């Protein structure tokens, strides 16, 4: 069936809840309201108030309570309304969700999937457009996933709910309703920790994820260049093999993400290529990202987020190097 990302995630949640009564959703406005982006629309009516729980407004306890639920044998799926508000619960993720398994030598894992909308491009108020994946990817023990299309969103979410790990599931707001795709009706899994080859090419490799995937695809198409496009899908743990493979193949690497440039995911990807595939490169690794400053108010958004021209110029520079 043709679905946008919102419908695909709603469908995955619904099927996982049918599959196991241990799956419970909790968050702000996710019940009657169906969430501010309507991702959980209709689920409370279908599964009841004790499985789709409207919580008081407190991010730390939404995540902390989820950890307790997971320890108690449930599979909580907390929703944080916007990633910019999740920092109030950062302590719960870094101090507890990510450490419970090691603290107890795997006797008390914390299986939970934290869903939150990320990134901008849709002219929202301050704190509603952040791309915080690098902060969370620095935390060992926490898996960080970010789909860029409806098919991957459904499959990655189902896989996440079948795992025994705390997983941060980042949903790019801009892609929620950007396009529809054929999404199978039945349950299926997309593997965690595996990047996806979006296109095959010979001239250069573009390594990207999230909001930048559709943009990169369109730039590459328009320019008529032959590019390997790699959609990371899982940010932590990184699919290093896929990264090295494409880097070795084309010898020219461009990394594109919406999050700020400095200390971003691109730095990690570039470092791994430099360590292990340096001599296979024909040109220095390049990065396109947002400037190293906080996401501005919506009026300045178009001056901040990487766009077609910025990516296009980077590709030209890389190919002429």
């Amino acid at each position, binding site marked *: 069936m043709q679905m946008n990302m919102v419908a695909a995630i709603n469908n995955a949640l619904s099927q996982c809840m049918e599959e196991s009564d241990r799956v419970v959703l909790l968050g702000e406005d996710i019940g009657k309201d169906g969430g501010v982006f309507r991702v959980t629309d209709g689920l409370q009516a279908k599964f009841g108030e004790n499985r789709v729980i409207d919580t008081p407004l*407190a991010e730390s*306890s939404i995540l*902390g309570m989820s*950890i307790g639920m997971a320890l108690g*044998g449930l599979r909580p799926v907390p929703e944080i309304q916007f990633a910019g508000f999740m920092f109030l619960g950062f302590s719960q993720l870094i101090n507890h969700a990510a450490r419970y398994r090691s603290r*107890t030598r795997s006797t008390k894992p914390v299986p939970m999937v934290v869903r939150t909308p990320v990134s901008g491009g849709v002219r929202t108020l301050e704190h509603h457009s952040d791309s915080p994946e690098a902060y969370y990817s620095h935390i060992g023990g926490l898996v960080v996933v970010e789909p860029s299309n409806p098919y991957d969103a459904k499959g990655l979410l189902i896989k996440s709910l079948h795992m025994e*790990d705390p997983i941060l599931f980042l949903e790019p707001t801009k892609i929620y309703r950007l396009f529809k795709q054929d999404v199978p009706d039945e349950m299926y899994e997309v593997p965690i920790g595996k990047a996806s080859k979006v296109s095959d090419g010979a001239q250069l490799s573009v390594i990207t994820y999230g909001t930048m995937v559709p943009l990169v695809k369109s730039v590459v198409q328009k320019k008529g260049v032959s590019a390997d496009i790699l959609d990371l899908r899982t940010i932590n*743990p990184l699919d290093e093999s896929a990264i090295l493979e494409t880097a070795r193949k084309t010898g020219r690497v461009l990394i594109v993400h919406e999050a700020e440039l400095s200390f971003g995911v691109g730095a990690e990807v570039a470092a791994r290529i430099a360590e292990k595939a340096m001599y296979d490169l024909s040109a220095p690794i390049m990065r396109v990202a947002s400037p190293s400053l906080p996401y501005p108010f919506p009026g300045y958004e178009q001056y901040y987020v990487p766009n077609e021209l910025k990516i296009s110029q980077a590709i030209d520079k890389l190919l002429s190097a």
Partner: protein
Amino acid sequence: MLKKTFEGFVDYIQVLDEFGTVDKSLLPEDVTDSMILEMYKSMSKARALDAKALSLQRQGRIFTYPPLLGEEASQVGSAMAFRRGDIIVPNYRQHAVFMLRGLPLDRWFVSLRGFEDGAAINGAKDTPVSVPIGTHLPHAVGLAYAEKYKKSGNVVVSYIGDGGTSEGDFYEALNFAGVFKVPLVIIIVNNQWAISVPRRRQSAAQTLAQKAFAAGLKGVQVDGNDVVGMYKVVKDALSAAANNEPTVIECITYRLSMHTTADDPTKYRTDGEVKEWEAKEPLIRVRRYLTSRNLWDDSKEKDMQEEFKKEIDEALAKAEAFKPDPKSIFEHIYSFMPEVLKEEQDAAIAAGFWLDTSSHE
């Protein structure tokens, strides 16, 4: 218009006073002399264990240790009220609770010797030590929600200090517990000091128990140095919690020792204050009571202490024989082994963790 929309009060309960006299009107029916004797033995064992740990830390045989001296009654009285199936979410000073919940002493020592392996208990529902203050209370709420969801009838009990009641997670957890009506008991161990900051600097509230009212929970105060009073209050709270009425219990006690072995309390409090509380400490009154009932004497005390010493020494020997496996630190991070982490593990193993061979076995 003017009308009163809220009125509240906090009960303070004491059953066994510092002179060893029992308030019979408050004594629970199931509390017999033999149970009080049992309480005394458990508190004594906790104290013996505590003294041993302190000494081991000074010898460098365990790492930083938070002593429980003076808080034996709040821990033993509450732990003896728990029912099979109840789930305990402690902070880091509930050594006697762990002991009474059946955590083998050698595992406790393994944890104190700095190895996560001490907390690896298959099937245990209680959670391990939680260090960041107050952050475990939302977990207790989630665990309680899960028990209610599964209709198990079990109750979750969590402990926090007076300092912990200043944390946002404390208020949030109480608030969530009230909204979701979960089977939960929260015990505030008000030991008067959060490291160097006294109780009056944590909150201008007259009692910490009254913080419960803001979240729609019941709040009660108890003499935390009275093991029988603790038992009664916790038992009543467990019954209420089993009916999905959460309670906050503030027990008034005193941390007679240091915050941890890294702390020097003479820097911030007077000997006079400590002496005053020493007179009210939890074991004296129980020994007075038991002696007055001809149930205890010096020779029994001596035999008991010898027994404890033997048990503690055996557990310690077992803990000191534990051989840690350095490569295991990589193996309990995810449910799977990521390729990138495996590479780091392989490199570390191949290089002997880059340790000098003279110190590496």
